[in-house]
């Protein structure tokens, strides 16, 4: 048997969480460095995965399968494809960064580091699961560490935010569990053997009514996670109350579980319902884009601003996915990664300024560029990436999404494009109020600029923004075959046809696939 790299990738952070417990109580100062060091290890594995990943293959790679409980048809079935590959890499990169940014946490630090590492194991598990039961297990398990991270180390209203986050998400996934059970039993009646396996679920034949219902319960669970308007109300609370590491991982990875789930499960498993319900999802997503951006614009609090900007950005991803075109799907996937990088970076920056001033209110700042030029520079750079300045990563994703949705969802694409404009408004206006002009508050005059540690934390993210912006081909090459396969399935099962030029496997070449 080959080296079970995916299992190791899941177990490594979990083992690291246990190892942290061995750090002696007296050496508190060692906990965080050890945690960061241990969490860097998975990057190596994920990097290997990225480069060893065979381009041009749509199917799951590095597949591992072992029965878990055969009578129920549950197996430990892991695999990685173009849709999940980059998200796994993103997760492994964001975890050490968010740990390294958690130097202000003093209370029960060991538990904190362990929780972040368990969260990482769960997140990687979600992306790698090819069995619906397994997927659900990971999907639900990650709530626990995140709940503790928000609830213990968050700010004033942390308990409210943590419980709200937990209940919202748990509600969605409870109904999804009903859907999963129903599908497994349906497979049992059709073939005589219950199964939760993703590939088996693709073979299910179901009435269009059943498909609609199942689409509904899956979409509800994922829409809460994304979050789609009007299910987004948990997000500002959770993001704002969470400690920096929590916000980074929430925005960077957890939200992607929603869009990932829609793409991984809703589209291929329920193609008929997908085609039927495109308008519903697209309308909600576009409302989210504009609403999120509008609310972000008027936020007096910097962290809330970034939080609402996520609602807007995730709306883009959903529009891209439900455009059902090559460009839209690829743009959706790459935008998941981009949003993780840029919004993660923005939350880190907000955390850094909060550590210095203990306020996140925009009005408390002004003229910071004078005392913190490096910080200002990085903030502006990240804002540009988030807005979608050509040459930076945000542009690639937004451009592809708009291109893809213009073919099939023209009116929505036109409205969504205003989201890009609004993003420039809220981020640059915030930049203006925080960084430019004279220093108005005496407290801000003596602020220290970013130290070496903080620059080192930001550096990998900045590098990613540049690399993904200037040369996205390696990433898109790996994504495209898998998203094409999703599209192929929808086209072959339904009477939906992708209008030209919506089918271009390699979106940057002129050749037809």
């Amino acid at each position: 048997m080959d080296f079970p790299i995916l299992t190791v990738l899941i177990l490594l952070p979990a083992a690291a969480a246990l190892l942290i417990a061995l750090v002696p109580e007296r050496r508190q100062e060692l906990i965080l460095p050890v945690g960061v060091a241990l969490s860097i290890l998975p990057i190596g594995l994920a990097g290997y995965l990225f480069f060893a990943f065979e381009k041009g293959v749509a199917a799951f790679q590095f597949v591992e399968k072992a029965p878990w409980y055969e009578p129920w048809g549950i197996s430990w079935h892991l695999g990685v494809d173009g849709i999940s590959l980059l998200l796994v890499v993103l997760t492994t990169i964001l975890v050490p960064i968010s740990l390294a940014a958690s130097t202000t946490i003093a209370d029960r630090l060991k538990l904190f580091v362990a929780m972040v590492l368990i969260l990482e194991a769960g997140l990687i598990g979600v992306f790698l699961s090819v069995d619906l039961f397994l997927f659900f297990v990971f999907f639900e398990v990650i709530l626990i560490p995140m709940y503790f991270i928000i609830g213990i180390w968050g700010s004033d209203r942390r308990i409210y935010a943590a419980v709200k986050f937990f209940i919202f998400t748990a509600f969605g996934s409870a109904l999804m569990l009903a859907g999963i059970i129903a599908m497994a039993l349906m497979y049992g009646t059709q073939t005589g053997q219950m199964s939760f396996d993703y590939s088996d679920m693709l073979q299910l034949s179901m009435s269009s009514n059943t498909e609609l219902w199942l689409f509904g319960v899956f979409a509800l669970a994922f829409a809460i996670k994304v979050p789609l308007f009007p299910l987004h109300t948990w997000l500002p609370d959770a993001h704002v109350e969470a400690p920096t590491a929590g916000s980074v991982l929430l925005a960077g990875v957890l939200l992607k579980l929603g869009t990932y789930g829609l793409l991984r499960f809703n589209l291929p498993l329920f193609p008929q319902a997908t085609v039927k319900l495109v308008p519903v999802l697209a309308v909600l997503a576009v409302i989210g884009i504009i609403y999120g951006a509008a609310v972000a614009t008027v936020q007096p609090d910097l962290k809330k601003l970034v939080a609402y900007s996520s609602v807007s950005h995730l709306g883009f991803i959903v529009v891209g996915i439900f455009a059902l075109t090559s460009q839209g799907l690829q743009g959706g996937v790459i935008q998941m990664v981009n949003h993780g990088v840029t919004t993660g970076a923005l939350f880190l920056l907000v955390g850094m300024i909060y550590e210095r001033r203990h306020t996140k209110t925009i009005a408390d700042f002004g003229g910071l560029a004078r005392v913190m030029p490096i910080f200002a520079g990085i903030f502006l750079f990240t804002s540009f990436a988030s807005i979608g300045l050509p040459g930076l990563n945000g542009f690639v994703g937004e451009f592809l999404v708009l291109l893809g949705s213009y073919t099939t969802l023209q009116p929505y694409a036109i409205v969504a494009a205003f989201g890009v404009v609004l993003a420039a408004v809220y981020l640059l206006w915030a930049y203006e109020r925080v960084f430019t002009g004279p220093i108005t508050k005496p407290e801000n005059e003596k602020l220290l600029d970013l130290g070496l540690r903080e620059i080192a934390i930001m550096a990998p993210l900045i590098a990613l923004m540049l690399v993904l912006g200037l040369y996205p081909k390696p990433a898109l090459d790996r994504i495209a075959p898998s998203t094409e396969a999703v599209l192929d399935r929808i086209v072959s099962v339904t009477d939906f046809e992708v209008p030209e030029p919506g089918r271009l496997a390699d979106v940057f070449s002129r050749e037809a696939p």
Partner: protein
Amino acid sequence: MSATYDVLYLAVGPEIILTLGAVLVLMIDVFRKPSARFHAWLVAGTMVAAAVVTWFQWDRVSAEGPFLAFSDMVVIDAYGVIAAFILLMVGALGLAVAWGMVERLGRRGAEGIVLVFMAIAGFQFMAVSANLVMMFMGLEIASISLYVLAGITRERPETDEAALKYFLLGSFASAVFIYGVALTFAGTGSVSVYEIGAFLRGNLVLEPGVLLIGMALLIAGLAFKVSAAPFHVWAPDTYQGSPAGIVGFMAAGAKVGAFAGLGRIVITAFPLYDTEWAIGLALLATISIATGTLLAIAQSDIRRLLAYSGVAHAGFILTGLTVGEAGMPAVWFYLTVYTVQLIGAFAVVAVVAGPTAAGSPLSDYEGLSKRSPFLAAVLALFMLAMSGVPLTAGFVGKFGVFAAAWRGGFEWLVIVALVASVAGFFFYLRVIVLMYMHEPAFAEAPGTMRARPEAVGALRWVLIVAVAITLVFGIYPSPVLDLVGKALPF
């Protein structure tokens, strides 16, 4: 029909050993005052002997199939043997938790041991009886032991109240059950579950009114014992007032015994009325899940919280039982892991409150993670397991009963139960919030047991075992699921 025997001591071996153990404890206690350590050895010996005999039963059932004994009063099948194993486990864990109480009771500690033995024996009789009158005997042996256990410390008026309430309402439920037996006899001319089943298969009952009322009363009587709503009103007061060390055993044992009896009755005696009882059980389940979950949210005492959560759990287990035999394996798995969680949770309560205390306000748990990280972590795990978070055995249990009910056509019930599970997070998480997210607000001097409670001795081991079972069977449930898959009634 496989072999039947008139006298076969193996069939009632575990019960005989438990009874002998009880007599020994009492007699030795009268003549010489043995130490607590001596009692501990005696208890361990009795439990191990009972488990060994149960193993012989299992061996024989696997080799030769189920058998009846004592004029078809007792049936030994995989169903009964699994119940016996679960009950012995519950008894062993429960006694270990109660050991602090047994020691504190001094002279009357032996009585506590005896009552636990008798309760286990009674519940085992319920699980293996093939005859409704026999089942009633088991029910009474167990119930009366529990009534006394509820009030055994006699230190506080709350304890007396708990015991009295339990006794009065419990006797009423027993009366309901025996009335059900009488009406069933009137309808079918028999009190043997097999003969009832055979009669109903062979005869067309044109006016089954009396029979159905009889069946409903049997179900109602047992629903009381498992604290299913609307027969649950005794549970919160009894849980709150009884000595902390023994509540876990009382709650867990009653659930196993009564569910074993209930399953046997509906599956074996009334297979022809499966639509009727399925709807009845589904209604009971719905009411229990809704009542338990909603009322648990409003509690300010962790024991009342656990009592109402127990009502909801009775509902979840009933969800599995609505589909009868097909749901039984899931029910057994649920019972196995839930009773362990329950005893574990009450073990923590016993440590935090002291083994003989009555009442455990939730405020005692504020900041527990800083005062006693181990206890807080353990209780948090049990709360998560009870709420059904994956990778804990609680999730597998819930998944099993839900899948069974869904397959049996009770989709609506599963959806109700799933939504209620989410609502359940409100109160399970509240305990975790108090332990982890509140600062310790304890007025007493630091260093005292109340300020920094600590699990010691047998109790610590109970917690470790309960945690291990909750996690191992949550991650790798296959061995248990395979085992309980065979535990169908003969």
